[in-house]
């Protein structure tokens, strides 16, 4: 009998703790599929963040390291430099990557570290209960901006792909979402390119996923997907952002 569909080998056969309607599960699966398709599971090392995905090491079937908050790109740098043959990816949320870890991500990208960063942006701090994130949209309500994000007070959301794509060490950057089957297919294509970029030794790669948080957005899963399409994708346009000027 021919097997048409199944659990990727790189994905552990365990239930996750993610909330209903959260897209972490889809993103995990896509990563696992790409690792399988590239045949690199046995030399892959993942780095989980502090945030909702802190337990990602339980969900993947490859070596995994838990980093401190925001430092995953530095930890990944240490691993990759010590074992250049490893395939190293970080899995980071918006607070982890764009707030407390803003320094680490910028410098890992500018050094052109041969790592792949999975950046999951759901515009809110999920695990700690719905506080404002560096990517919270203007006007969006959270528990620490209950009247909506006032950009005069709390500043403006950070567009990570646009910011990092100005750095010469970057080889591949894309922003995707998984709100529809078509978007899932596109997202997987971008993810595969990112890992291939690392395998080709051509520089830093990152894929940003616009993701949902029905629990803290106080929406149904379907409403949350629509909010990603209607609101988030307006502020954070989908597409590839690798327009790195070659200077010097």
């Amino acid at each position: 009998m021919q097997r048409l569909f199944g659990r990727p080998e790189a994905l552990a056969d365990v239930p996750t703790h993610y909330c209903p309607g959260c897209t972490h599960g889809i993103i995990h699966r896509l990563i696992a599929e790409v690792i399988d398709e590239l045949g690199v599971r046995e030399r892959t090392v993942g780095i989980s963040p502090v945030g909702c995905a802190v337990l990602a090491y339980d969900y993947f079937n490859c070596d995994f390291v838990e980093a401190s908050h925001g430092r995953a790109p530095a930890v990944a740098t240490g691993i990759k430099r010590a074992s250049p043959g490893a395939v190293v990816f970080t899995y980071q949320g918006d607070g982890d990557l764009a707030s407390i870890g803003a320094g680490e991500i910028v410098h890992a990208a500018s050094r052109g570290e041969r790592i792949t960063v999975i950046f999951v942006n759901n515009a809110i701090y999920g695990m700690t209960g719905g506080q404002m994130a560096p990517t919270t949209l203007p006007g969006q309500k959270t528990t620490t901006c209950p009247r909506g994000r006032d950009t005069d007070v709390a500043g403006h959301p950070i567009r990570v792909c646009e910011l990092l794509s100005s750095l010469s060490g970057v080889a591949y950057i894309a922003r995707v979402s998984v709100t529809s089957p078509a978007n899932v297919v596109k997202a997987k294509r971008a993810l595969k390119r990112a890992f291939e970029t690392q395998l080709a030794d051509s520089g830093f790669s990152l894929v940003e996923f616009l993701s949902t948080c029905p629990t803290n957005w106080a929406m149904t899963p379907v409403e949350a997907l629509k909010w990603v399409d209607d609101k988030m994708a307006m502020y954070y346009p989908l597409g590839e952002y690798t327009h790195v000027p070659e200077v010097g």
Partner: protein
Amino acid sequence: MGEKVLMKGNEAVAEAAIRAGCRCFFGYPITPQNEIPEYMSRRMPEVGGVFLQAESEVAGSNMVYGAACAGARVMTTSSSPGISLMQEAISYMAGAELPCVIVNIVRGGPGLGGIQGAQSDYFQATRGGGHGDYRLLVFGPSTVQELMDLTMEAFDLADMYRNPVMILGDAILGQMMEPVEFREPPKRDLPPKIWATTGAAGRPKNIISSLYLDPAKLEKHNLHLAEKYKRMAAEQVRYSTYKTEDADIVLVAYGTTARIARAALDKAIERGLSAGLFRPISLWPFPYEALKAATRRAAHVLVVEMSLGQMVEDVRLALGGGKSVHFYGRTGGMSPAPREILDEIVKIVDKGA
């Protein structure tokens, strides 16, 4: 081997690490230890190793965490304000049981402080420094030779216990030049790093983490660490004594200060006083029992530090209030002159306090 070369303390640290098999170095410039990353940037490519200047001590120490996960022999070096920034990664490495070597070429604090030698990071080094119940092995060398020997051995000890090891130097030791020879540390059977995250090829996956959400499991983990610290405390106590037998007054000092104290007590002996020196080499574990034994017959104990009194607390713990413990310290990057210490000795002995 056997050949003596003249080396600056900081360079000796770097070369000792290379000779001990350290092949990854991550660091950030800070005075007074810049010779170490500079030396590493020249030397690492020659031995096929990794030198990387990090964007901060926070990042650099987390790169150390990563390289340690990969099973590499890895070191970072810094000075006081930079070591404060590394406390996050140090706590995580202690929690995840990752071996690494951290060298602190201490300068005066608090805050930005100054750049001259000090011993005011003793509490930070010996009490943990970061959050949580953990310990580092901490050594306080007093000569460039000892700095070199302990740095080399530190890599073995880190691997043996799966724990960060800290060398606590100071600006004077880092900057001074002394003749040294490279000596191999005693051969140890070190366990293979089967826990390292090198890719799950032909084995179940390895996970490195310090997260235990279940308090019962976290307590169990902490008790496991405590067992290890107990073993470290039993096996790694180091100290030296100088004329402590029958001494009326015993000076207690470590690192650079121990050398100054020794010069002072030699002068005291010339004057007919009976004085000795107890020098802790392992600051954690502190040589409590040995100190107690070495001061049993002494009437006075004088602790000398380049701080306002940090190690003195361990001395008081060791002696249990049975003896009057005096303290003399200079701080902020000032070092005590032998004359000042001699005056202090004379004052204490004269008073018979």
